[in-house]
């Protein structure tokens, strides 16, 4: 069956046969093959179906310039959709299946769609499926069109490595120019990295017998040796897929099949682009038939894979590079018929199988048609970097023009199609000289699509865009190339226009009678070839993305059977004990109300603000007046944004005249610290204010509940704990275990509470002492879940949960500073704009449900009227163990004035009622708080 395989040469290893299947049939290839080359060697040409008409498709190119042979490949039970057969190295045991074809590419039941092509022109879907609603038809159309289906299996261990690297010179492309440039740069002492997307370096050199009087393979080996011995690094099978700001180049290094590429983020001081050029198709009738291939592709199949694609070959080319190709193929035994594309209209003959080609009245029986409409330099990366393009009339191609920073193009990418020119450019660029525009012996007779000519002439093979579609788009005034692309989907195939763009642009230029360069190109965007999303994602998740902050007392919590979870970036106890979480949390709430709860509150912010201007500074930062706060006292307050929106709440304690501690919310510490730093440095004298975030240096234990005072007195600290000597919202400094201890009497539960803060290293000793004395009073540790309920019973808010991006302090019942505070503060003016003064602001309320009904769903809307209009929503909702009924908080339009009203609560299609109340449902007089 290896009828197309040559007996000698090429880069395959004929001693290592590999078995694989395609569309259910078994074949054999060799190590070094790609899926496409192995199939061609076996005489298989139909490797896929087109996107829209389900026309049979065979490979056009031999590498990244092929839009046709797309397969789902299964290896070791794992399936990968949309693998390009031309770039997928063959592995023993691969099972490949053509995408968009069933049961096989050769016999596809949807191929009948092609008969309706007259009605399936550009914009067909938009025009036809308008009524009654596109969305009605979309699922069916999506199912019919499209490429490979995604596997629903989760791929274990499919994780891309990511590396951050830099080099002096990055050479992209390992053909003649790239090798020569990398060598010159490495030998000049530069730190060089050379990348090439093929597994074997050398570019198109394998098509040549000799390079600089040496056999091509030896010349390549010599360059590789010289580069590596000069300290250069070579990454083969590595695609430079994008160039980003400040010379950052994305490199995707392929590993074994079934592994994601390894991403190198390479920062290069200089980039040498030696990406080569591609053959472009010729637009003629039936040019999409399997067996029509690029001239360069056929030469690559022969030179790299030992595959002679045909015996009787028509070679149609408009340029001088065809002569070398003819010699190469003739030497390998092909019979070549040269046809001049200018002398008459071309049309392929045959069905799925190509039988010949006719030109005018003449018909030639051939098995293969090779076409080249000229070379298109690969300038994608040049454009990513912001380089300009220049139209070259001689070469009929866009060449690199004004260079982007730190980049130079050489070789075929720069229009140097002669080897000697290419090598001299490369050696100049390697030592830092700019080669400029190259001379060339290359000649071609311009050949572009001819509007109005007969037959179905393909421009985009995968997406079935024909010359007629471009003409139609022009008639319907989609004349800008960007509109043309989106209307016809030209260039939107998985090769992103590598084969179709130039013909499409030329066709549009011809239809409008404008010069081609005036039509311009569409935008080149990364990635150069499709990349799995996993490559960008890599290990950027979980701990490596956002490391958890750990409590000093984590071992103690684990010892007490804590259910540890992530809360605001910290790993902290949600609740304690083994059993049903709901029951355990409920018990913790009851214990805290009956005796006391002991809680690790270490994540609470502890940002110290010090210095002679500290008082004025915090007074400006806070919505509330802070300058009247006396040392040893604490005040609750809000920080606002300049837009007047509540950003954080918490308490601030004054230690002495010039020293404050800001206790911001646990999850807002980083943003509050940044906020403070920004205002300290901009608008203040930074030498008179110092901000020191000690959150992680101090541990905090909270004792909350009616027995809190008894528990604390058992620690025998030298502090008078009586309510008169140490009232609510005050602070005392004491010593514990010979270490400073701060005791803050503040409460987030509505019960008597003390927050004890101590140096992190002393936390275990404090924990042991508090737990011991707590046990004697029937106290127990409580987690963050119980705290959430305790604070909701009392109507205490959590910023970001009970507030949203529009909440101002007066919406939360804190309206006095807005009216009375005279000193400037952040957000002050915003609290008096029309919006802030509006009558229908959402304000914080409590919600009471009829007895015996379930808690309200958080997020449920509070509605009024017909049709219902949302007045607000439920922000917090719990079953209160203390009150024996549900409690809820919500934000409701004009809520404070509606207290006592009954309102409809709407959620997921169901309606209930609730009565609006004050937010505080527990101990509204605050007797327990001040006990």
């Amino acid at each position, binding site marked *: 069956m290896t009828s197309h395989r040559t007996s000698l040469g090429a880069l395959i290893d004929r001693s290592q046969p590999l078995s694989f299947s395609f569309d259910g049939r078994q074949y054999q290839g060799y190590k070094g093959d790609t899926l496409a080359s192995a199939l061609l060697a076996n005489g298989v040409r139909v490797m896929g179906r087109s996107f829209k008409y389900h026309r049979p498709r065979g490979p056009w190119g031999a590498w990244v310039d092929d839009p046709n042979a797309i397969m789902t490949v299964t290896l070791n039970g794992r399936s990968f959709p949309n693998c390009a057969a031309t770039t997928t190295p063959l592995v023993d045991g691969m099972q490949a299946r053509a995408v968009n074809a069933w049961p096989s590419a050769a016999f596809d039941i949807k191929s009948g769609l092609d008969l309706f092509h007259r009605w399936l022109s550009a914009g067909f879907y938009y025009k036809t499926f308008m009524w009654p609603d596109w969305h009605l038809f979309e699922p069916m159309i999506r199912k019919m069109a499209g490429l490979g289906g995604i596997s629903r299996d989760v791929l274990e261990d499919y994780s891309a490595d990511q590396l951050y690297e830099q080099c002096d010179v990055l050479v992209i492309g390992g053909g003649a120019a790239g090798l020569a440039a990398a060598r010159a740069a490495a030998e000049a002492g530069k730190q060089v990295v050379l990348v090439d997307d093929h597994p074997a370096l050398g570019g198109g050199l394998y098509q040549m017998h000799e390079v600089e009087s040496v056999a091509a393979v030896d010349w390549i080996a010599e360059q590789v040796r010289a580069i590596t011995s000069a300290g250069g690094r070579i990454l083969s099978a590595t695609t430079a897929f994008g160039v*980003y*700001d*400040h010379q*950052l180049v994305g490199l995707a290094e392929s590993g074994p099949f079934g592994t994601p590429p390894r991403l190198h*983020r390479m*920062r290069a001081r200089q980039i040498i682009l030696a990406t080569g050029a591609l053959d472009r198709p010729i637009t003629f009738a039936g040019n999409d038939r399997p067996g029509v291939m690029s001239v360069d592709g056929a030469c690559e199949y022969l030179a790299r894979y030992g595959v002679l694609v045909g015996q009787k070959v028509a070679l149609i080319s408009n340029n001088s590079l065809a002569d070398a190709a003819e010699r190469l193929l003739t030497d390998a035994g092909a019979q070549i018929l040269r046809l001049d594309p200018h002398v008459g209209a071309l049309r392929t003959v045959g069905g799925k199988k190509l039988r010949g080609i006719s030109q005018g009245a003449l018909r030639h029986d051939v098995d293969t048609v090779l076409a080249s409409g000229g070379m298109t330099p690969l300038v994608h990366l040049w454009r990513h970097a*912001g380089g300009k393009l220049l139209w070259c009339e001689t070469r009929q191609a866009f060449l690199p023009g004004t260079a982007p*920073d730190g980049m130079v193009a050489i070789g075929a990418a720069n229009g140097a199609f002669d080897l000697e020119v290419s090598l001299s450019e490369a050696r100049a660029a390697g030592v830092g000289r700019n080669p400029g525009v190259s001379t060339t012996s290359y000649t071609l007779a311009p050949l572009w699509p001819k509007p109005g000519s007969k037959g179905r002439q393909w421009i985009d093979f995968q997406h079935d865009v024909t010359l007629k579609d471009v003409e139609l788009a022009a008639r319907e005034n989609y004349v800008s190339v960007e509109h043309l692309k989106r209307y016809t989907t030209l260039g939107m195939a998985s090769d992103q226009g590598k084969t179709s763009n130039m013909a499409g642009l030329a066709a549009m230029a011809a239809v409008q009678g404008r010069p081609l360069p005036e039509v311009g190109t569409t935008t080149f965007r990364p990635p150069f070839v499709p990349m799995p999303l996993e490559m960008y994602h890599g290990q950027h998740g979980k701990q490596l993305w956002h490391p958890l902050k750990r409590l000093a007392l984590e071992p103690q919590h684990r010892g007490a059977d804590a259910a540890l979870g992530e809360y605001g970036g910290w790993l902290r106890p949600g609740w304690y004990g083994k059993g049903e979480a709901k029951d355990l949390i409920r018990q913790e709430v009851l214990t805290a109300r009956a005796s006391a709860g002991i809680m690790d509150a270490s994540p609470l912010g502890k940002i110290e603000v010090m210095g002679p201007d500290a008082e004025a500074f915090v007074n400006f930062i806070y919505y509330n007046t802070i300058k009247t706060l006396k040392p040893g006292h604490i005040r609750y307050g809000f920080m606002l944004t*300049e*837009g007047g929106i509540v950003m954080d709440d918490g308490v601030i304690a004054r230690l002495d005249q010039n020293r404050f501690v800001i206790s911001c919310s646990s999850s807002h510490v980083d943003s509050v*610290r*940044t906020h403070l*730093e*920004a205002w300290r*440095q*901009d*608008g203040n004298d*930074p030498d008179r204010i110092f901000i020191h975030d000690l959150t992680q240096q101090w541990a905090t234990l909270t004792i909350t509940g009616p027995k809190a005072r008894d528990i604390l007195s058992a620690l025998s600290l030298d502090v008078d704990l009586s309510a008169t000597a140490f009232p609510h919202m005050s602070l005392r400094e004491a010593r514990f275990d010979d270490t400073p201890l701060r005791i803050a009497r503040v409460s987030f539960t509505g019960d008597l509470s003390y927050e004890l803060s101590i140096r992190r290293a002393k936390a275990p000793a404090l924990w042991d002492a508090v737990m011991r004395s707590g046990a004697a009073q029937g106290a127990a540790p409580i987690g963050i879940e119980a705290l959430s309920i305790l604070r909701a019973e009392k109507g205490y808010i959590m910023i970001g949960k009970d507030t949203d991006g529009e909440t101002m302090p007066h919406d939360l019942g804190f309206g006095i500073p807005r009216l009375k505070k*005279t*000193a*400037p*503060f952040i957000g*002050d*003016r*915003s609290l008096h*704009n*029309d919006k802030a003064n509006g009558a229908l602001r959402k304000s914080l309320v409590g919600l009471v449900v009829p007895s015996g009904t379930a808690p309200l769903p958080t997020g449920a809307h509070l509605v009024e009227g017909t049709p219902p209009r949302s007045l607000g929503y439920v922000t917090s909702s719990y079953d209160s163990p203390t009150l024996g009924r549900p409690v809820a908080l919500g934000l409701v339009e004009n809520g404070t004035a509606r207290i006592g009203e009954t309102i409809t609560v709407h959620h997921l299609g169901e309606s209930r009622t609730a009565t609006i109340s004050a937010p505080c449902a527990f101990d509204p007089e605050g007797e327990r708080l001040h006990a």
Partner: protein
Amino acid sequence: MQIFTCPFCGPRNETEFHFAGELGKIRPATAEKITAQEWASYLYTQRNEKGRVQEVWMHLTCSELFVMERDSVSMQVLDTRSLREDAQ
């Protein structure tokens, strides 16, 4: 990804930085009467120039604000200096 040069720490990836504002924006003296237009302009109006711009950025890892001059078209960073140095 761009490279910005913190005047204190040297060249780093842009992910370490946070844009603070355009240089030269003065907070209105809110102890006085400020019209809604003036305040809205302070909050929301940006010069958003094309070409050479002067901005204040924070390097999050050292928390220092600094002035950066850069080209908003070519993304070239032209100069960075500390905010204090700029004020002097």
